[in-house]
């Protein structure tokens, strides 16, 4: 029976012809758009997470403390909420780091009469601390330290990145939703056309007492088949774009976002896209259902 129903659905799909092709292409377009935004958003999200892990807040100290005072200060900071680690950086270590950064121009630093760099605390944040509110609270607590002269660093720009990611997701969902609606309407049109072409068969089926499921299932399956085909094509489009454009974009992405390579959609997301396509097509097929009884 199932084989017969699937056979009827495929037969219907062939009969719907160009309208069915248009419906499949629209589903491809809507899911490719959604998947494309998802892909960009995933990578921006990864970049945000990557940079969030590397956030440091620097507490510049008024004067260089003794070793014991530095140790006590580190211990006081380490117990503050939102702090993952706290490390004391002496004036000498700071100068050493500067020399490393300057490389062959390090002699410039050696010509300084005194070391102008302040001692500091390098604070890394916990996941809770690496939020705008968490970071603001922590900065306020660190500023309140008697030893603190100035505070550097923060996560505002990372939050801007995360906001951009969320905006991308919303735009993706919006564009995807509009295209999905168009796809549903097209599948409905294709199925209505099939209903018209099949009116004699449906009449015979109802006349002989075919179960309602047998009457409707081919229409639903036809819509689902269109949706699945559209989803598979959308995924192929995304794979093609990723394979062709990925290597070209990676150097740029590495320099701007700090990601070594672009990530593709996860298996879970691919499954969700295929499911969404099948669901879209199924909706269209179901919406076109005909009259059942007088």
């Amino acid at each position, binding site marked *: 029976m199932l084989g*017969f129903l699937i056979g009827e659905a495929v037969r219907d799909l062939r009969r719907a012809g160009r309208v069915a092709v248009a419906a499949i292409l629209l589903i491809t377009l809507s899911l490719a758009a959604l998947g494309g935004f998802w892909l960009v958003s995933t990578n921006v999200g990864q970049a945000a997470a990557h940079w969030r892990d590397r956030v440091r807040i620097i507490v510049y100290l008024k004067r260089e403390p003794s070793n014991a005072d530095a140790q006590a200060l580190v211990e006081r900071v380490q117990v503050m909420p939102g702090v993952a680690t706290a490390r004391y950086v002496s004036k000498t270590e700071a100068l050493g780091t500067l020399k490393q950064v300057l490389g062959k121009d390090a002699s410039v630093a050696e010509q300084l009469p005194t070391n102008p760099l302040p001692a500091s605390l390098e604070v890394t944040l916990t996941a809770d601390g690496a939020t705008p509110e968490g970071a603001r609270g922590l900065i306020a607590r660190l500023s309140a330290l008697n030893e603190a002269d100035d505070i550097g660093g923060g996560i505002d720009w990372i939050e801007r990145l995360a906001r951009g990611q969320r905006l991308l997701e919303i735009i993706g969902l919006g564009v995807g939703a509009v295209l999905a609606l168009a796809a549903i309407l097209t599948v409905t049109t294709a199925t209505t056309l099939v209903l018209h072409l099949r009116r004699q068969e449906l009449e015979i089926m109802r006349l002989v*007492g075919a179960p309602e499921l047998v009457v409707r299932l081919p229409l639903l399956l036809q819509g689902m088949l269109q949706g699945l085909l559209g989803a598979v094509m959308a995924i192929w489009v995304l794979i093609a774009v990723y394979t062709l454009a990925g290597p070209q974009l990676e150097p740029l992405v590495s320099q701007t976002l700090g990601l070594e390579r672009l990530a593709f959609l996860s298996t879970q997301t691919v499954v969700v896209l295929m499911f969404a396509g099948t669901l879209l097509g199924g909706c269209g097929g179901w919406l076109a259902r005909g009259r059942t009884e007088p």
Partner: protein
Amino acid sequence: MIELHRVWKVFAVGPVKVPALSDVSFRMGKGEFVTLHGASGSGKTTLLRLLYREELPTEGEIDVLDVDVPSLRGREVAALRRSIGVVFQDAKLLPGRTVYENVAFVLRVLGTPRREITPRVFDALRTVGLSARAQAYPTQLSQGEAQRAALARAIARKPLLLLADEPTGSLDETMAAEVIDIVKDIWAGGTTVLFATHQAALAATLRQRTLTLVSGRLVKDEG
């Protein structure tokens, strides 16, 4: 088998009410062959459509196969129809399918096991004398052959009741006689038959109980 009690069917055409059937009552027993005679527009088709619940009566009671037809819903309608074979003046064969596929189609949609389909299709085609035309498409059939194919489709699932709505209406005398012989064979096999026709001569030659409808009223029940 069939029982109608004071059945009315009134169609509303805008503000105008047009009665298609007026106060129709009759009984028909299991295994009977009854001819339903009446001119075009007398209400024969409406009456048949009420029996397989394609229409609902405006008033009155209809029992078919011990089932109160107007009260049926969804699956119950389908279940009733599985016991009824219907043939029409136009054979209503599916144009894209062969005679074999047309008959097999109804068996498939009713979930008949695959191995039973071919023997049952050919049994039905043998009964109507169309075995040799199994692979022909409807456009390649004469009107008489098309009507016989429709009969094969109706009897392939072995219905208890056959409703024939003017199956000979568009056939010449020879073809009509062939179709009538087949219907009689089906009846002889135990199927109850209600045969609608507008042809008075045909109703007379059938020599069966005849119900006569005039303008939606049952005016005669004889034979």
